[in-house]
């Protein structure tokens, strides 16, 4: 059994193709540029109903905040492996949002303790998922489907269907309003405050957590190969459990954010329509998170959220009437299927994306 090195040095062209295909961030950046340029050109050509300009792009980021944050939550649980997924994340947003509403809006708690309570409740709900999945070995998909039903139901029942929107809740809007960035703000568009108060901190924290802490290492280890992780002495169940708890914590912050954004704690905040979980998972997958675990990056998720947000915002200007919101569905579905097929193809051709 001799080993030989058969790999020849590939040319520049094929290296670039490979980078585009295997590095999801590069593909996403290209797609974002294509969308922005294409929309802008359409705008100049008069095909849009309103200008697709930096102001609009900046303002629409307000929608990217909860989406990207929940996609980060999904990133954590999907990376943890063994079919990890959290369908209940939107329901956690609903339920913790109501708890936050009670604390801040009805019991008159100051903001900080109320936020801490919401986050703690989010973590506790995530711990329910985590306990079932990590400690008892329940399949994640079906477990979180069950808790989705349960949490959603509790969120609606807890205040007899009523949203909470007292003046103290309404004043929270300032948490998310658009602001001018100090110093350089004069020359660039106003960006929603939530991007700075919620999304960026969450991103940085999750990034640090994944890339710089021992927890991140363990998480990638169990997601990549949980047998090998056991053999290396990594506490598999504890680490996986923590991923679900953290997802719940992030959902808690999102609950605070949406409560502020809409000046109202709504029992269906994360579950109205198709809910927030499906888009969050979609964004995560689009961002290059492998559904089989062990692969996923914060930057990919952020770029995917931005792509979808800006694409959606553009579609609303491109299509008038009800068509607009309908074409958003088409865009999301097509982009997801395209990226998934591409993923499968590159996995076969290059042995996996990174």
């Amino acid at each position: 059994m001799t080993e030989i090195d058969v790999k020849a040095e590939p040319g520049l062209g094929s290296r670039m193709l490979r980078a585009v295909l295997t590095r999801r961030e590069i593909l996403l950046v290209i797609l974002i540029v294509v969308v922005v340029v294409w929309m802008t050109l359409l705008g100049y050509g008069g095909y849009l109903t309103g200008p697709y300009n930096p102001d609009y792009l900046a303002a629409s980021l307000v929608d990217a905040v909860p989406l990207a944050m929940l996609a980060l939550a999904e990133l954590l649980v999907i990376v943890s492996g063994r079919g990890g997924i959290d369908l209940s994340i939107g329901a956690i947003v609903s339920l913790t949002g109501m708890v936050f509403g009670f604390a801040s809006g009805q019991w008159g708690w100051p903001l900080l303790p109320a936020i801490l309570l919401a986050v703690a409740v989010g973590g506790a709900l995530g711990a329910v998922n985590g306990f079932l999945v990590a400690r008892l070995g329940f399949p994640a998909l079906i477990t979180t489907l069950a808790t989705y039903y349960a949490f959603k139901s509790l969120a609606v029942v807890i205040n007899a269907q009523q949203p909470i929107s007292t003046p103290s809740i309404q004043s929270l809007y300032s948490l998310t309003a658009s602001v001018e960035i100090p110093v350089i703000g004069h020359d660039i568009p106003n960006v929603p405050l939530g991007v700075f108060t919620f999304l960026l901190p969450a991103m940085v924290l999750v990034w640090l957590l994944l890339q710089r802490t021992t927890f991140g290492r363990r998480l990638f280890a169990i997601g990549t190969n949980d047998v090998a992780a056991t053999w290396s002495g990594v506490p598999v169940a504890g680490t996986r459990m923590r991923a679900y708890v953290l997802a719940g914590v992030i959902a808690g912050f999102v609950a605070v954010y949406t409560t502020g954004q809409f000046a109202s704690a709504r029992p269906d905040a994360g579950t109205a329509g198709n809910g927030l979980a499906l888009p969050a998972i979609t964004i995560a997958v689009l961002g290059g998170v492998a559904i089989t675990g062990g692969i996923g990056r914060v930057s990919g998720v952020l770029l995917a959220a931005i792509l979808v947000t800006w694409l959606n915002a553009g579609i609303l200007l491109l299509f008038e009437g009800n068509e607009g919101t309908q074409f958003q569905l088409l865009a999301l579905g097509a982009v997801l299927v395209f990226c998934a097929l591409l993923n499968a193809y590159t996995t076969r051709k290059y042995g996996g994306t990174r």
Partner: protein
Amino acid sequence: MSAPRLSVKDISKRYGAVRAIGHADLVVEPGTVHALVGENGAGKSTLIKILAGAVTPDTGSIEFDGAPARIGATADAMALGIATVYQEPQLFRELTVSENIFLGRELRSGPRIDWAAQHARVVELLDLLGLPSKEATSQVGDLSIAEQQQVSIAKALAGDAKLLILDEPSAILTDAEIEVLFGVVRRLKESGVAVIYISHRLDELFRIADEVTVMRDGATLGTYPIAELTVREIAELMVGDVLDDERPTRTVPDGPPKLELSSLGLEGEFHDVDVTVKAGEIVALYGLVGSGVSEIANTVYGIDPATTGEIRLGGEPVRPISPRHAQKLGIALLPADRKAQGMFSFQSIAFNISVGHLPLLSKFRLWMDRGRERTVAKDLIDRLAVKTPSERQPIGAMSGGNAQKVVLARQLVRRPDVLMLAEPTQGVDVGAKEEIHRIVTALADEGTAVLVVTSDLPEALRIADRLLVVRGGTTVAEFGREASQVDVLAVAAGEVRT
């Protein structure tokens, strides 16, 4: 003389950089049992997978009953009448025994399965193999591993096989079960079926085989009538001329045992295992597949805690209950199944090395000390001569030998008191093997107690100061450095020492 049942010429097969088979010829006559022997990794399973259509060869030709045969898929092999019992059972836990046996070629009455006909046939087969007929409708998941193995055999027998291939069927069967199996094989042989029989238990070949083909390093060496050989001679053929390579001499420092296993046992796997390893000593545990040898290291490492006996570490009794626990006690294990138990494929080399030592390579056990991590990784890459441009390369893209060194490096970040190595050089090329041996010896020189669990005999003899043979789930003999391969193999394969 009529055409042989099977005639294989010049088969070769590569898996990427690994050459599984370099050159194989094989001729099997109808109505004979043809043994195929060779050391682990010699290419036996690959050859039979080619015959079964599960793997396509790179070169070579196959003739069946005198006619050229193209075996592109398993269905082709089945159509020819080649039935295969794979080394790893390919059964479906949720289906019944009867369904498993007929899967893919169900007996039908109209559109539906003819359950009664299948049942009748299955009962016959089970009878033949000495299994109770009520098992026909049991789900396979409810059966023991040995019973599952017998179901695999029944499955192979269910079709009208002209050529039956059995890949190490006896490894997990009891003596009584083997007896039944041999009865079946003899009957098939009498009815004109050709049988290829792979086994590491050389002694049993004499009771069943007519001819034997020996493989070494991916090549067939030749075919011999079994009656002309002895266990010892077969062993010599398998081992080849590396037989008397020079063995480095090293002196083991005197001292109390570092690791002691006394009457250690694990229900259903092994029993009464007695081993001692001193600091600075290298001890090998050698046994054939199914001897229980592989489980011993796992037990010491806390994967399956022992059910009887005692483990002592530096004289103190310990009871590792998990790998984590074992590591805290200072025990490390290089796992046998590199891919499944050792590698984090799409993660970097540095990641793969540091993952077992996160508290050590972090600040406050929380924050990765990336500088240290890099230094440690680079240091180990140098020390182990891992061939890689950088510590950031993913391990999945590396050759087997280099990947193995990385997994080994993980065990060396902290120098363990006891280092166990399971099949440390399986699927590793000669050069890397050499280096791994050097590293292990160096570690022992620094005072680590080393226990090598291997089924690679030359390796065991080369690096070990002492060698213990495991057979039938227990330690049966001890050899020193001067032992000859043939002696050891003969004992392990069942020769009774007088």
